[in-house]
C-alpha cells in the first residue's frame, strides 16, 4: 500500500536503461519515505526478469506475461496498470519519458484522474502548505522541470490525487545497483483478469527497431553545434573535430529543428542527457533546456561570437570567436602535438 512503483520498459528481454535509472531513484525516494519500492514488468517470456530488477532494491515485482503484451501497445498495458494501481494505491508512479512512457503515462493518468508531470529533471520529497485551505501536505513528490521554452523552472505537485506520476528522460537520473543480492518477491498477475479483447484493437503489422547508432551518452567528448552553425554543411567541421578527438557530435534543439542534424543527436531536456569529460558547445546560445542536458559535463568549452551567450555561464572556457576559424586551429594543434 502507498508504495513507489516503477514501470519497467522491456525490449528483447532487457530492462531499459531509463527504467534502471528510475528504480535507482525510486529506491532512494522509498528509503526517504519509509515505503517499499515496486516494479512492473509487462511483456512476454519474462521468466527470470526479476533478476535484472531486484538488484536495484525492488521489494515486489508484478509480472504480467502474455504473448499479446509484447511488443508494447497502449491499451493492454494501460488496462493492467490502471487496475493494479486501483488495487494497490501506490503514492508515486515513475515511467521513462520515452516513446513508450510518453504514450502510456498520459493514458493512465487520464483514466485515474491523477496528475502527471512530463520530462522531470529532478524529483525531491518535500512538504506543501496550502495557505488558502489552511492545510499542510507532508512528503509530497516535488516534480521539477523547465517549462515555457526553458525560461522558467517549475516545481509541480499533486496534493490530492494519487499516484503522483512523473516521467523522466533516459540519462537524467543516475543508475546504481543498490545491492546485487537484494531479493524481493515476484507477484504473477493473471493477465486475463486485467485485459479484455477490445484492448487489442491496435495491431502492429511491422516493426524495425534498431539500436541507436549514435551513442553520445558513452562518448568521452561531445562536440555539439547550435543554430549559430548556420548550415548543415558547416556541421562538417564538428564531425571533423569529433573524429580527431575521438568524440561524438551532438546538437541543440534549434539546430535539429533547422534540419542541420538528425533528431537522434539532440542534447537537452527533450533529447539526450550527456555527462562527458569534455563538452564543446559551438554556436549554441545555451537555452536552459539545452543546458539541462549537458551542464554536468566535467569540462565545458563554449565557442560563440556572442560574448553574452547564456552558455558562457556554465562554461569553463569561453572562446569568443567564429567557430569556422577556431575549430581548424584546434584540429591543427592537436594533430601536430599528439602522437
Amino acid at each position, binding site marked *: 500500500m502507498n508504495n513507489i512503483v516503477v514501470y519497467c520498459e522491456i525490449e528483447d528481454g532487457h530492462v531499459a536503461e531509463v527504467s534502471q535509472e528510475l528504480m535507482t531513484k525510486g529506491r532512494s525516494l522509498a528509503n526517504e519515505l519509509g515505503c517499499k519500492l515496486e516494479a512492473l514488468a509487462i511483456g512476454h517470456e519474462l521468466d527470470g526478469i526479476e533478476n535484472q530488477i531486484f538488484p536495484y532494491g525492488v521489494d515486489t515485482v508484478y509480472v504480467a506475461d502474455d504473448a499479446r503484451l509484447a511488443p508494447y501497445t*497502449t491499451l493492454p498495458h494501460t488496462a493492467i496498470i490502471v487496475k493494479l494501481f486501483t488495487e494497490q494505491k501506490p503514492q508515486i508512479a515513475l515511467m521513462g519519458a520515452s516513446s513508450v512512457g510518453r*504514450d502510456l503515462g498520459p493514458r493512465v493518468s487520464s483514466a485515474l484522474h491523477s496528475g502527471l508531470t512530463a520530462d522531470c529533471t529532478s524529483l525531491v520529497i518535500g512538504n506543501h502548505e496550502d495557505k488558502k485551505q489552511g492545510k499542510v501536505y507532508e512528503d509530497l513528490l516535488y516534480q521539477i522541470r523547465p517549462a515555457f521554452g*526553458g*525560461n522558467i523552472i517549475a516545481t509541480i505537485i499533486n496534493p490530492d490525487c494519487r499516484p503522483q506520476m512523473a516521467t523522466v528522460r533516459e540519462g537524467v537520473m543516475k543508475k546504481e545497483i543498490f545491492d546485487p543480492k537484494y531479493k524481493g518477491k515476484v507477484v504473477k498477475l493473471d493477465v486475463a483478469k486485467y485485459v479484455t479483447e477490445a484492448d487489442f484493437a491496435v*495491431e502492429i503489422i511491422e516493426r524495425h527497431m534498431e539500436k541507436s547508432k549514435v551513442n553520445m551518452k558513452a562518448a568521452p567528448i561531445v562536440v555539439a553545434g547550435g543554430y549559430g552553425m548556420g548550415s548543415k554543411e558547416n556541421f562538417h567541421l564538428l564531425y571533423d573535430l569529433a573524429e580527431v578527438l575521438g568524440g561524438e557530435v551532438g546538437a541543440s534543439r534549434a539546430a535539429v529543428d533547422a534540419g542541420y542534424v538528425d533528431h537522434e543527436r539532440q542534447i537537452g531536456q527533450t533529447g539526450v542527457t550527456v555527462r562527458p569529460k569534455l563538452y564543446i558547445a559551438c554556436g549554441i546560445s545555451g537555452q536552459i533546456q539545452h543546458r539541462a542536458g549537458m551542464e554536468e559535463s566535467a569540462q565545458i568549452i563554449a565557442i560563440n561570437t556572442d560574448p553574452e551567450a547564456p552558455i558562457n555561464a556554465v562554461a569553463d572556457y569561453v572562446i569568443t570567436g567564429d567557430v569556422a576559424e577556431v575549430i581548424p586551429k584546434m584540429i591543427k594543434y592537436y594533430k601536430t602535438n599528439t602522437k
Partner: protein
Amino acid sequence: MKAYKVIVLAKQVPDTRNVGKDAMKADGTINRAALPAIFNPEDLNALEQALRIKENFPGTTVTILTMGPGRAAEIIREGMFRGADDGILLTDRAFAGSDTLATSYAISQALKKVKDFDIIIAGRQAIDGDTAQVGPQVAEKLGIPQVTYVEEVQKIENGKVFLKRRLERGVEQVSCPIPMVMTVNSSAPDCRARNAKLIMKYKHAKTVTELQNSNEDYLHLYNDRPYLNISEWSVGDIEVDHAELGLSGSPTKVKTVENVVLQAKDAKVISALDNEIDDLMRELIENHTIG
C-alpha cells in the same frame, strides 16, 4: 468511397523558440505580450495529414478545434487558408489555469458535442509545455484507441487506419480501428502553404465575439456565406462538470516558479588568436581531458 469527419486539435502557443531580450519583464516574469503567438508547429504537421486524407477521400471534412482565448481564432483562420473547412473555438474563463488533464476533459466534452467524428489528429506536443499529454488523455476520456508518434497515414480501409510511427529507436507500422486519436511528429511532412484562393474566401471568417467587436458594414455577408462563421463555444455550450474544469479540475499544481537566472562560474575567456587556442589545447592535453 467513404468520406471521413476529421478533427484537428490545435493550439495557439507563444513562440518560445524566439525568446528575445524583451520577453522577460523587470520583475522577472514572462512578458507574454512580447512573444508572437503562433500555430503550434506539430499541430501544422497534424493538419497536413488531415488535408491529405481529405484529398484522398473526397467529401471528407476537416475541422479545427482549439481551446484558448478569443485571439486563438487566428489559428482557425490560418488552418482555413491551408484547406480546413471550418473551426470551433472553445473559449471561457472557466478553462483558465487548466493543466493537461482539465484541458483534455474540456476538449473531450467538446468532441462529444461534435459527435460522429472518425479521426482526431493532434500534434505530438505543444512547444510551450512539451508534455505530449493532451492527445492520449483525450483518447482515454473518449474511450477510443490512440496512436502516437505518427509520421504517415499510409491508407484507410475497412474501417481501419494504417499508420507509420517514428519512435526513438525505430519504426512501427500499425493498424487502428476508427474512431481513433493520432498524434503527429515533426518528422512528418510539413504543412502545405496558404492558398491564395482560400485566403480570399476565408479572410473575413469570424467568431461571434469578433463580429460583435467589429464595425462590419457587411454583416449580411455572414448570413449569405455561412462558412464565414467560426463556431465559438463557451462552457455553457458543452456538457461539463464544473469541478473538472480549470484550476479545480487540475490535479497538478504549480508550487513554485523560478525564473532562470544564470549564475556565472569563473570561466576563462580567450579569443580566437592562434596562441590562445594553442595554450588551451596544450592545457587540455596535459590534464588528459583529450588525447
